[in-house]
C-alpha cells in the first residue's frame, strides 16, 4: 500500500505540495528574519515559530475567508499561512510604513483586517477574550463563522484561559481554541507550570469537546481541524485542540536556553514537520528532487522580494506619530 500512515483524507498532489510549500515559506521567512535581526534591521522581540509550522499550516486549511484568526506574538507562521503577503510582513518587522500594521506593531503585532487576521497579541492569554468576543459578534449576527484562537501551553496557567473557555462554552460560541503545546512557557517546562498537564482534560472540565493532535504532522492537524471546524461553525459550541509540538529555536532572540539540553532539541528535530513530510511525500512518489529544488527556488524568490519590499518601504513621518490613537470622527 503506497500511503501507509495516511489519515482519512483524499491526498491530491497539489494539495500536499501546497502544505509543504506553506511550511517551507514560514521556515525560510523566519530564517531570514533571524539573520536580519542579527544585523539590526529587525529589532525589539522576535519569537520564531520554527519547528511548529505544521500547526498553523494544517489548521489554516480548515478556515474560510470569513473565519477570523487571533494569534500570539509568535504569529509569523499564522500570518503567512493565512495568506498575508510576505512583503508587508517583513516591512512591518523593519518598522516601515508599508508594513501590515504601518510599522506600529512590529513582529509581535501583525494585523490584516481584510483577511480577518486580528493580531498578533503580546500579553499571554489576553487574545482569548478577544476571540470569544469576535465569536459572540458572529453568533449575534447569525453569521456561520469560526474564530480560531491560537495560544501556547503557558497561557493555560492564566486565569483568562479558564474564564474564556467557560464563557465560550456557556454561550455556545463558535470559537476554535488551538493550544500550541510546545512543552515550554519561555524557560518553564510544562511539568513545572501545570500540576496536571493533560490540557484537554481541563478544557473538558470547562464544558468543551477536546482532542489531542500530533502538531508535528501537518496532515493530522489539517484532518483534526477540518473535523471540528464545521461543528463549531454550525454553532454546536466551541472546541479545544491541543497541538503537541516543539520550538526548535530559542524563545526569543534574548534567550540563552539554559533550561533544556541540546539533546532534547536534537531529538525533536528528528520529527521536523517539514523534513518528515517531505520524506513521506517522496515515499508516496508525490515529490521528486526537481520538485523540491523548484519549491526552494520559488520560496527563496518570494523571501528575496519580501526583503526588497521592506528595504524599499518608506518610514512613517514623525509628524504622524500620534495618528491612529483615536478614530477620525465620521468613521465608522
Amino acid at each position, binding site marked *: 500500500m503506497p500511503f501507509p500512515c495516511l489519515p482519512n483524507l483524499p491526498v491530491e498532489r497539489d494539495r500536499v505540495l501546497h502544505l509543504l510549500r506553506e511550511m517551507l515559506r514560514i521556515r525560510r521567512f523566519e530564517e531570514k528574519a533571524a539573520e536580519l535581526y542579527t544585523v539590526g534591521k529587525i529589532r525589539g522581540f522576535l519569537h520564531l515559530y520554527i519547528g511548529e509550522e505544521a500547526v498553523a499550516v494544517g489548521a489554516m486549511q480548515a478556515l474560510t475567508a470569513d473565519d477570523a484568526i487571533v494569534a500570539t506574538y509568535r504569529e509569523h507562521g499564522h500570518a503567512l499561512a493565512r495568506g498575508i503577503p510576505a512583503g508587508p510582513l517583513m516591512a512591518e518587522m523593519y518598522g516601515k510604513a508599508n508594513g501590515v500594521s504601518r510599522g506600529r506593531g512590529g513582529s509581535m503585532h501583525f494585523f*490584516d483586517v481584510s483577511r480577518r487576521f486580528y493580531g498578533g497579541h503580546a500579553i499571554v492569554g489576553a487574545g*482569548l477574550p478577544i476571540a470569544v468576543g469576535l465569536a459572540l459578534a458572529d453568533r449575534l449576527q447569525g453569521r456561520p463563522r469560526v474564530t480560531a484562537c491560537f495560544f501556547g501551553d503557558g497561557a493555560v496557567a492564566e486565569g483568562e484561559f479558564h474564564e474564556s473557555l467557560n464563557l465560550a462554552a456557556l454561550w455556545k460560541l463558535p470559537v476554535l481554541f488551538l493550544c500550541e503545546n510546545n512543552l515550554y512557557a519561555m524557560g518553564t517546562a510544562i511539568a513545572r507550570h501545570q500540576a496536571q498537564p493533560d490540557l484537554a482534560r481541563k478544557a473538558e472540565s470547562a464544558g468543551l469537546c477536546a482532542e489531542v493532535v500530533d502538531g508535528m504532522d501537518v496532515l493530522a492537524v489539517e484532518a483534526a481541524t477540518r473535523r471540528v471546524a464545521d461543528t463549531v461553525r454550525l454553532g454546536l459550541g466551541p472546541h479545544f485542540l491541543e497541538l503537541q509540538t516543539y520550538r526548535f529555536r530559542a524563545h526569543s532572540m534574548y534567550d540563552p536556553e539554559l533550561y533544556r539540553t541540546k539533546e532534547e532539541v536534537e531529538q525533536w528535530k528528528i520529527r521536523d514537520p517539514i523534513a518528515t513530510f517531505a520524506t513521506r511525500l517522496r515515499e508516496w512518489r508525490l515529490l521528486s528532487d526537481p520538485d523540491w529544488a523548484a519549491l526552494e527556488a520559488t520560496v527563496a524568490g518570494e523571501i528575496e522580494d519580501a526583503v526588497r519590499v521592506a528595504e524599499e518601504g518608506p518610514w512613517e513621518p514623525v509628524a504622524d506619530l500620534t495618528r491612529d490613537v483615536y478614530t477620525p470622527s465620521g468613521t465608522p
Partner: protein
Amino acid sequence: MTGKLTYREAVRAALREALAGDPRVFLMGEDVGRYGGAYACSKGLLEEFGGDRVRDTPLSESTFVGAGIGAALGGMRPIVEVMTVNFSLLALDQIVNNAATLRHMSGGQLSVPLVVRMATGGGRQLAAQHSHSLEGWYAHIPGIKVVAPATVADARGMLRLALRDPDPVFIFEHAMLYPMEGEVDDAALPRDLTRAAVRRSGVDVTVITYGGSLWKALEAAEQLAEEGIEAEVLDLRSLRPLDTQGIMASVAKTHRALVVDEAWRTGSLAAEISAQIMEGAFYDLDAPVARLCSAEVPMPYAKHLEDAALPQATTIVDAIRGMRKRRG
C-alpha cells in the same frame, strides 16, 4: 421623555433607547439580567429585549470586558457593565493593552466602538475594597475616552453620545447619585461629550470638579455666597479628553481655583488639572491652585471616619476661605 427622573431611571432610559434603536447594541455584565443590575439600572430590560441582548455574565471581569472589545471589532456596539470600578482592576489589562491599543497597533485598521459603564466612588460605608475612585487612572490612558455624568440629564444623554463614538468610552457613574432626582428634557439633551459645563457662575474662585463631588461643590458655593464669595462651579463632565480651554477660560475670569476630587490626593486627576493651570494660566493666578481630595487611607467602614476621609461641602467651604486668606 421629559420631566423628573432619578439618575438611575435616566441610565435605564438611555439603555432602553440604545437597545431599541440599534440592533448592534447589547448589554452584558454581572447580574444585569435576572437580578436587574446591582444598582437596578437594567431592571426590566432582560424581559423587554431578551437574553441575547441583555446578557448575564459569570464573574470573569477580564474576559467579559475583553469579549466586549472583540464583539466591537466584530461589528457590534457592546455596552459592558462592570459592576463597580473596584472590580475593573481585574479587567485593566484588557483595557490598557487591548481596548486602548488595538487601533494604533494595527496601524489604524481597527476601531473599538465599545462602551463600558461602571459605578464609582465612596460614601456608602463599603470599606477599603469597595470605595475606590480610580477614574483618574483611566484618564491617563491614550486611546480611550472617559466621562463622568454628574447630572440626570448627562446620565441620560452621555450614553447616547458614547455609543456614537467610534472609540472605547468609559462612563463612571457615582454610586451616590443613582437615587438623585433631576429634570430631563430629551429635546435638550447634551450634544457634546467632552466639553466642561459651568454649573454655577461666579467671579471670585473656580471650583473644578466632576461626578459625585459636583453637588457638594454647589452646596458649598451657596454657603459661600452668603459670605459674599461668588464661586464658579465647573463640572468637567469629560475626564479624557479634559476641556483645558474651558478650565482656562474660567480661571482667567476668577484668578483662583480649587480642584475637588474624591480620589486620593497624590497622583489624582486633581494634580493634572493643577499642573495644566500652572502651564496655561500661571500669570492669571492670584493664588496657587488648591486641591481638595480624599485622605490617603484605604476607605474605613465607620461612617464618621469615611465622612472625614471624603471631601465634603464644609471642607470645600473651608478650603476656599483658606485660599482667600492667602497672600496675593
